């Protein structure tokens, strides 16, 4: 009896363990990998005025040879020909890089202050960082329009305190500055939380030890605190950089006509020009571009583990 139990137990446990691993992967397979391959396929197709708006459409196993012969790299070649796309990619990466830098500069001191705050008020501080999530992202971005537009709240405030003449208006709305403000505002929690997680678990006696060995506090920050928080810095930067690169809503609502971002370009190709194959190619390239930082991130995580 006991022997039977011993044999059964590990088996059923390994089955359930396998199930736990398998289910999320099944989810990813269905809702990420499969759509990606559909997009990849469309990116090799040609535009058509039809439904769906591209050919060839995959029609049965028998047509495989015929199907493959119609696929080509035409859309990718076109992307490199027209400087608009290259510029859009570069501009997206630039905006994402600067936004991430600003996020770090603002988020790090915040996270550090939170981590050094008395233990009793830390949960409250974390709560306050998460609080904006209770309102829709879209509504919060619209709120920034209300603040930044020429006759908006910021102008009114500056008029009220007398920092600006009554005839002047702030000219931030529909500029890159507005995009940066929107990005930093929207992504700040994603930067602060990983930084806080890394800083909070740091042993305070390490700083005392550094002090004791003759290292003044400001120097100890760069020698001890910052290097030890690097996993948090990298995690926060990746979590912000990757989605900012593909961001559509913020540049669309706050940016100007000349704010070039790949998310906007993608939207235009897809809905404006109804060029699904080209839009798919844009999306595939974007994914490839972002795989690089993700791999750096993964590598770092492995090193920490």
């Amino acid at each position, binding site marked *: 009896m006991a022997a039977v139990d011993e044999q059964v137990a590990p088996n059923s446990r390994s089955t359930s363990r396998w199930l736990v691993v398998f289910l999320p992967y099944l989810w990813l397979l269905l809702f990420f990998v499969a759509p990606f391959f559909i997009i990849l396929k469309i990116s090799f197709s040609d535009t058509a005025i039809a439904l769906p708006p591209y050919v060839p459409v995959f029609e049965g196993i028998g047509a495989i040879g015929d199907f493959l012969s119609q696929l080509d790299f035409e859309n990718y070649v076109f992307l490199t020909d027209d400087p608009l796309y290259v510029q859009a990619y570069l501009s997206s990466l630039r905006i994402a890089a600067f936004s991430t830098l600003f996020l770090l500069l603002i988020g790090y001191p915040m996270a550090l202050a939170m981590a050094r705050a008395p233990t009793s008020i830390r949960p409250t501080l974390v709560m306050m960082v998460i609080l904006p999530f209770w309102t829709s992202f879209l509504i919060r971005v619209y709120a920034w329009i209300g603040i930044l537009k020429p006759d908006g709240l910021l102008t009114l405030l500056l008029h009220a305190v007398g920092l600006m003449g009554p005839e002047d208006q702030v000219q931030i709305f529909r500029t890159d500055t507005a995009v940066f403000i929107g990005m930093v505002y929207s992504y700040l929690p994603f930067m602060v939380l990983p930084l806080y997680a890394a800083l909070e678990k740091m*042993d305070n*006696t*390490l700083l*005392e*030890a*550094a*002090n*004791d*060995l*003759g*290292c*003044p*506090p400001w*120097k100890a920050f760069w*020698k*001890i605190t910052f*290097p*030890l928080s690097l996993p948090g810095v990298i995690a926060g930067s990746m979590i912000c950089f990757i989605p900012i690169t593909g961001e559509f809503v913020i540049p669309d609502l706050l940016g100007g006509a000349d704010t070039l971002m790949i998310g906007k370009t993608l939207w235009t190709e897809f809905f404006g020009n109804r060029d699904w194959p080209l839009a798919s190619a844009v999306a595939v390239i974007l994914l490839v571009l972002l795989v690089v930082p993700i791999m750096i991130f993964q590598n770092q995580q492995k090193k920490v583990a």
Partner: protein
Amino acid sequence: MAKSLGPIKRKFSPWTDPAAVPFIRFENITKRFGTFTAVDNLTLDIYEREFFSLLGPSGCGKTTLMRMLAGFDEPTEGRILLQGKDISGVPPYRRPTNMMFQSYALFPHMTVEKNIAFGLEQDKLSKGEISARVEEMLKLVKLETFAKRKPNQLSGGQRQRVALARSLAKRPKVLLLDEPLGALDKKLREETQFELMDIQTNLGLTFLIVTHDQEEAMTVSDRIAVMDKGVIMQVATPAEIYEAPNSRYVADFIGDINIIEGTIASTQSALGAPGEVLIESDGIRLAAEQECPAVSGDKVAFAVRPEKVRISPDQPADTSVNAVHGEVWDIGYLGDFSVFIVKLDDGRVMRAAQANVSRLVDRPITFGDMVWLTWPRDAGLVLTR
């Protein structure tokens, strides 16, 4: 056999020399955290090259005292003098003290080598000097082959050595050790205690160690300060603390002891001969050869260590003083010693320890035996506090 022994310990007792100048002086130090008084008007002198222990239960203020010397906490009142200079307000990174932390506090992102070099780099020493000193330190703690490892690739004992090497690398005037050996197992701890003593003697440094382990304090220290609730109960050599504790608290904290409450029946002091105190305690008469400030009628405690109590089934010739009769209630066999717990005829309990000098498995005295406990007049001690 044991490894080579360190240098012979010379007699060292600057505290008995009235002309000696203390190296560190805590002067009327009080430290309060809110309404809690961690250290209460404490004055203490520590001499150069001394191995000094602060001993006490957790929360007695010993760590606070050490942290004030390191500069992590400032005293609320009083001042700390190091070589005669007031060091109040000097930040920790400018004090000539180094500390070995209880948690070791090794920098996890640096190799062993880098950890040891950290303090030296702050002093802007040349590269050559630093690497020479690091090498010397690695050799001192026998970790030469581990220089390139990270702390998480080391065992607890090795980490402890790195922490020691790092705190010694700058040749501090005073090395502070906060429960340095707490995380090590007994065998390794004992070995390390002797190594610490060798290092201290060889380098000629002043060591201040904080510990709650009385055995550790006894082994390593020149002097011990026993602390309780922010005040020092007694400062003395290990032998004095053990043989002549000044209070019930110290007697009870250090080692095992029988304490019998009683009243002084008579005291005599004769010129040229040791004085004698006679104590009456519910029908038991106790005598101790001792000068005693207390007078007849005072409530005092009589204390005698178990190993000084003789246990025997036979009635001694003189049962008038220092002799009690009872039944063996329990026996603790410790290998080297057996401790007999004896229930006296009046219900009180006393302990007697006997060295197990022969290899008899069956002891002549066993559970339920009626025995006599006796001890000489110079074994007991009268405690007035």
